């Protein structure tokens, strides 16, 4: 199976932002322009997370999302601030294909099943934020602010049973560091999960993807800093993977 290269755009109000360990958010620019750029450069998918919508109990900015998706004809996942089936439907109506949920799913796991039954599990992405502990990973919500005392691997098993179609797994420890992905986390998660895992957090150089490919079954990569700040082309990754 082929790798999927996904551009991850975290947004706050009207801006594309980027942090380290999901904190210290820095403004990068206009998300519409960035999304367009990656689409033209043959990105496989785009994930957009309104990273603070949940935190401030705010609804996602539908008008902005519509503008971002308008001229993009590749798969788009949107997350942040989705609390109900109604929210999910209005997000799909912005022109995206999949919705990502995190906090609302932890608070109300039944929501996962409710969503899967209506919009289909292939459109339900579980966003999971994991922090490394001694010998396990703890589940976090609210953009890495709320610790839940739940074992990430247990949660992955549970959301599979509840109807999740995909898991966006972010390592809080690696996120924004450019030090490479959390291989152990990804490996364990991929072994446990029935549905595909998208790994996120730590991509700093091309070899980091190779590391995941060599040590795990994970085939999907959500990449932010490497594109937005280091200004790398999607093509660069694809050519590297072809040469491998």
């Amino acid at each position, binding site marked *: *199976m082929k790798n*999927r290269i996904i551009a991850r755009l975290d947004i706050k109000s009207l801006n594309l932002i980027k942090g380290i360990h999901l904190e210290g958010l820095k403004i990068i620019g206009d998300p519409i322009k960035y999304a367009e750029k990656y689409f033209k450069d043959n990105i496989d998918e785009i994930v957009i997370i309104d990273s603070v919508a949940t935190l401030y109990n705010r609804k996602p900015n539908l008008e902005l999302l519509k503008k971002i998706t308008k001229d993009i*004809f590749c*798969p*788009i996942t949107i997350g942040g601030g989705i609390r109900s089936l109604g929210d999910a439907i209005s997000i799909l109506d912005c*022109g995206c294909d999949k919705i990502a949920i995190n906090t609302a799913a932890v608070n109300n796991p039944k929501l996962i099943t409710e969503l899967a039954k209506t919009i289909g599990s292939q459109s339900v992405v579980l966003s999971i934020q994991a922090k490394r502990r001694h010998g396990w990973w703890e589940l976090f919500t609210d953009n890495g602010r709320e610790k839940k005392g739940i074992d990430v691997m247990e949660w992955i098993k549970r959301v599979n049973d509840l109807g999740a179609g*995909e898991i966006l797994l972010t390592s809080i420890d690696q996120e924004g560091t450019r030090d490479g992905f959390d291989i152990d986390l990804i490996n364990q998660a991929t072994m446990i999960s*029935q549905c595909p895992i998208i790994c996120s957090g730590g991509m700093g150089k091309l070899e980091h993807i190779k590391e995941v490919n060599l040590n795990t079954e994970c085939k999907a990569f959500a990449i932010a800093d490497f594109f937005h700040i280091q200004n790398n082309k999607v093509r660069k990754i694809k050519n590297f993977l072809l040469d491998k």
Partner: protein
Amino acid sequence: MIVIVDYGFGNKINLSSALDKIKVDHLISSKKKDIENCSHLILPGVGAFKTTINCLKKKKLLNTIKDIAKKKPVLGICLGMQLLFDYSVENGKTKGLGLLKGSVKKFDFKNKEIKIPNIGWNKVMTIKKNKIFSNINKMDEFYFVHSYYIKTKEKKVIMSNSKYGDLSFASVINKKNIYGCQFHPERSRNQGLIFLKNFCKI
């Protein structure tokens, strides 16, 4: 006018953006009258089989769609294609539109390293010539996202196959004026737009 059937949920908006992009007039509607007057009908993807069929039942559209399929071009995308068949096993056995013979099965691999759903870009291996493939390069890839696939004994309706794991499944089907694709043309870049354009020209 081309009509996109509105189930009340799903990804009809990005399908509509794709038709805007190729400059095709269209309407998103669940009104019987609009559907009866359409030139072409599109059943979009994204949704669960049972919920979608129940929604069409509630809106009393099942027979309307069946009638249209007798005379006008119909395109089912992903779930929309699956609806065209006899039944699906998604969330319990549910009857489909029955316009094509066959059923909708869930992927089930012995090798648990193969994840479900199948998500990603894949080639479409054409086995029959069809105008729906005009101007599409055989190396072009399309975007798939699905846990279910078509199983049919009526092999002649299969225009192309695609692979997931060791399984080969129907990715484009056609019988008379009825078309279906398992991938999402509206999400498949320029080649997807060409595919939609080909359908609109039928």
